[in-house]
């Protein structure tokens, strides 16, 4: 054995020990490694795909013949609602998040994601929330108002059971998981990369997933707000959507589609990222027009937020408003076409090999382009009016979602399978599955298109004979079952190949990106040393880079500190900047998920006291979590290799927690913006406005608010200055706590002045605005309590910690002033 090989083997053994999960069952509950969490995520999301698929089969069985007695309307309503809900929320988003968790660190050349424990927490919240929704369905308590849950159908008057609550609470808890993963992905892409990996050298998938993660942070909050408002209306009769008391059901549609339309692109863009990754490898070339594709992905991500009203063309909105959204809807065809042409050009410049991933990508092209074209058709208002709520829309969305998402994801699973399992795919059963799924898909949904054009409405449990729909529905149902058999074969094929095929060589496709430089299957530590790259395709430049990495010729190959370390780089240039110490195995993410999910789900069984207790548990576990993460002592710069002495991330002014908070506050800010939008919408449009009276503030409330906000903005800065100067930060922490209490007091005064939020949507909205302020003041107080505990324990505060609290304090102060100003201003002006 050569000295170099001995070095590689020693490094592997030491890193394997440091990064090892706990043994047996405990290991599954305590692991936070991206390989383990990603696999669990993938398995659970696949299980939900199977459930969603079975529900689809039930729908097609019901619609196969007119007047079918297979299901009654009550069961059918639950089945189609759950099909949409499961596929959109429990399968599509978690599935790409799972794949991203598995392959993104490898692509970027880092050892794990930025917040491994946050990833584990997101997984368990998803598992608990998703399971609750499925259990409710099995008990016959599923939601039945359609996956977009329009009130007044879903209000307490028309949906009196707990079905709608299952949707509102269960799905919102899952959205917490999506937001956690999005924050993790953004910070990882921006900061956790190989040395030298500048923005222009990032793998194309990283760009796509960065755009998608930002979209999740900006699209989900309006939906979360909508769910909160509808649940408050159902539980406490706060009339946000009740016209007679100043509400408006159209507000729900706006909030839902502010999320719902970007959601389509949140699902499509990761698939597009996979195509842009896989297709050049299959064509034995590199991606044509990398910069154009990046620009197209960013454009598509932003433009998709300007389309939400195109789902509301039949709601009576003035024609000019419709024209704005019709114009914006046609616009998205441009960046989509840029991508498609870049991919076609890539195929043209390369030599395509027809492996299984490529076959599914061809299936994508054949299907998604048709879905895109019918999308342009329904962007045109008069056509939209004709086909709104018909099966034409059902067919269009399935062309986009199955063609644009499921097919590329299957391609990705086949493409990355060697990396994840260490085994190489043999091209047999998968080919048969492809030829069952894709033709059957087109037969199914061509027939559904035609049935829609002939006037068949969606969400109707049956239809009468003699309308010309019988043959079309029968054809669609039969071919849909063929498609289901094909999907089952895909699952069987993947399972067989995961467990039974022979071990394959490293980098079997001849790809150029870094994930293929890791051992197969990827060990928990990913890379033995952090790679140094000089181009977008490091493996094409240097096919032996994998050996250099394994021999420890990159950064952080020194294992003497015996902890999980990875490199943080500068955002634009990718220059080594800090050393991040990642957390070890812990049961805390699992525990936090248990109490979080209990807090969300206990109200379903009217266990409100349990929910409150669980919230206390959330605070307690979170405090233990951060307490244990905080390093015991300051170390100063550490040797990162190659002569670089780098500071530990926790000792810098912008530790990973600061970056995570920054992006979480982006989501929080959008949530707040959506709340202001809702208030303005009701004020402008709702029929029963103005309310009987506006709130007229006295002097005390605004004085508390102004004083509190000012002091809250100032105190963390004083704390940072004191820490920097080596003085005690106790007085600043105390001042910040008083300021947060003052702001909460101002919010409380609004609630005291308007004691009946159930009386009018205006008063209910004031409670939500004041609740926003009080909640954030409470959050800041919890953070200050943590800092105070550290001071009492005699531990020195770090500037980074104080700056994180400062971010939240600034946000609370700024939005608090705006929220309370919005509550008081109409009364002042009146």
């Amino acid at each position, binding site marked *: 054995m050569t000295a170099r090989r001995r070095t590689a083997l020693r490094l592997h053994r030491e890193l394997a020990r440091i990064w090892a999960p706990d043994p047996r069952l405990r290991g599954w509950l305590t692991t936070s490694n991206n390989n383990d969490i990603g696999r669990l995520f993938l398995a659970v999301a696949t299980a939900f795909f199977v459930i969603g698929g079975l529900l689809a089969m039930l729908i097609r069985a019901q619609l196969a013949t007119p007047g079918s007695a297979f299901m009654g309307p009550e069961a059918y309503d639950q089945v189609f609602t759950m099909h949409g809900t499961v596929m959109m929320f429990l399968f599509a988003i978690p599935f790409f998040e799972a794949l991203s968790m598995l392959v993104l660190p490898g692509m970027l050349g880092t050892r794990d994601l930025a917040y491994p424990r946050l990833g584990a927490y997101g997984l368990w919240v998803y598992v608990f929330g998703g399971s609750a929704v499925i259990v409710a369905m099995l008990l016959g308590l599923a939601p039945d108002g359609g996956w977009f849950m329009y009130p007044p159908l879903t209000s307490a008057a028309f949906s009196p059971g707990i079905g709608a609550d299952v949707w509102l609470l269960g799905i919102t808890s899952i959205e917490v998981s999506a937001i956690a993963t999005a924050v993790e992905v953004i910070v990882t892409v921006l900061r956790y990369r190989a040395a030298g990996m500048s923005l222009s050298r990032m793998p194309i998938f990283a760009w796509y997933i960065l755009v998608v993660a930002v979209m999740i942070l900006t699209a989900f909050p309006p939906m979360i707000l909508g769910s909160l408002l509808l649940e408050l209306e159902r539980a406490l009769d706060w009339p946000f959507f009740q016209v007679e008391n100043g509400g408006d059901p159209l507000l729900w549609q706006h909030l839902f589609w502010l999320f719902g339309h970007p959601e389509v692109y949140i699902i499509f863009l990761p698939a597009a990222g996979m195509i842009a990754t896989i297709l050049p490898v299959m064509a034995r070339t590199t991606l044509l027009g990398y910069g154009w594709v*990046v*620009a197209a992905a960013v454009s598509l991500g932003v433009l998709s937020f*300007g389309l939400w009203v195109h789902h509301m063309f039949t709601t009576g909105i*003035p024609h*000019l*408003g419709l024209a704005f959204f019709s*114009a914006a809807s046609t616009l998205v065809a441009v960046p989509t076409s840029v991508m498609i042409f870049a991919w076609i050009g890539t195929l043209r410049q390369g030599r395509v090999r027809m492996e299984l991933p490529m076959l599914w990508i061809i299936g994508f092209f054949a299907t998604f382009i048709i879905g895109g074209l019918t999308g342009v058709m329904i962007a045109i208002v008069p056509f939209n009016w004709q086909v709104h709520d018909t099966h034409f829309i059902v067919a269009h969305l399935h062309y986009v979602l199955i063609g644009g998402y499921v097919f590329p994801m299957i391609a990705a699973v086949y493409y990355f399978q060697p990396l994840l399992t260490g085994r190489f795919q043999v091209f047999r059963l998968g080919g048969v599955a492809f030829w069952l799924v894709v033709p059957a898909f087109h037969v199914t949904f061509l027939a559904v298109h035609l049935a829609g054009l002939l006037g068949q409405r969606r969400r109707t449990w049956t239809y009468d004979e003699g309308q010309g729909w019988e043959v079309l529905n029968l054809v669609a149902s039969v071919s849909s079952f063929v498609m289901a058999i094909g999907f089952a074969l895909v699952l069987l094929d993947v399972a067989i190949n995961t467990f039974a095929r022979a071990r394959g060589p490293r980098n079997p496709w001849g790809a150029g990106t870094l994930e293929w430089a890791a051992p197969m299957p990827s060990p928990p530590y990913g890379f033995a040393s952090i790679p140094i790259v000089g181009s977008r395709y490091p493996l094409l430049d240097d096919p032996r880079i994998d050996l250099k990495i394994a021999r420890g010729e990159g950064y952080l190959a020194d294992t003497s500190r015996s902890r999980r370390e990875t490199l943080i780089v500068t*955002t634009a240039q990718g220059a080594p900047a800090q050393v991040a110490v990642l957390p070890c195995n812990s049961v805390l993410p699992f525990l936090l998920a248990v109490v979080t999910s209990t807090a969300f789900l206990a109200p379903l069984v009217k266990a409100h006291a349990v929910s409150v207790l669980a919230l206390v548990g959330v605070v307690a576990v979170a405090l233990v979590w951060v307490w244990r993460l905080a390093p015991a002592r300051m170390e100063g710069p550490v040797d990162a290799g190659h002569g670089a002495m780098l500071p530990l991330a926790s000792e810098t002014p912008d530790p990973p927690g600061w970056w995570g908070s920054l992006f979480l506050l982006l989501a929080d800010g959008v949530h707040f913006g959506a709340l202001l939008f809702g208030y303005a919408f009701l004020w*402008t449009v709702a029929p029963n406005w103005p309310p009987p009276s506006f709130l007229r503030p006295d002097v005390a409330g605004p004085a508390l608010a102004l004083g509190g906000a000012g002091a809250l903005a100032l105190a963390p800065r004083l704390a940072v200055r004191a820490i920097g100067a080596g003085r005690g930060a106790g007085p600043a922490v105390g001042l910040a706590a008083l300021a947060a209490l003052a702001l909460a007091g101002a919010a409380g005064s609004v609630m005291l002045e308007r004691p009946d939020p159930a009386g009018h949507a205006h008063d209910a909205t004031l409670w939500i605005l004041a609740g926003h302020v009080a909640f954030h003041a409470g959050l800041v107080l919890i953070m200050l309590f943590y800092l105070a505990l550290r001071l009492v324990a005699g531990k020195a505060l770090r500037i980074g910690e104080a700056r994180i609290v400062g971010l939240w304090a600034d946000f609370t102060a700024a939005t608090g002033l705006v929220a309370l100003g919005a509550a008081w201003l109409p009364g002042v002006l009146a």
Partner: protein
Amino acid sequence: MTGILRIALPLTVWLAGFCAIYALQGLGCSRHWPEGLDRRATLIAAAALFVLVQTLILLAVLYRPSGFRFVQATATLLAGAALAAAVWTSLPVLTLEICG
């Protein structure tokens, strides 16, 4: 982060402007619109301002370039796209009835 912000800014401003024009149209058709204020003229003025802002962003990207070539090229492309999007999505204010 400056590079990322340069790339993100032009279309984010488009989104804000697009929403503002739509909100203005909603306000124009509401009971709160001041008597005597011409709805179409106001909307056209707002659309012109919107296009002007996007033009200024494009000029700023061109004449205050990033030191990083990839960021500069991408930001320029997106600023051009945002300007085109602003023009295209503002066109309806010239043609259609405001509240019909």
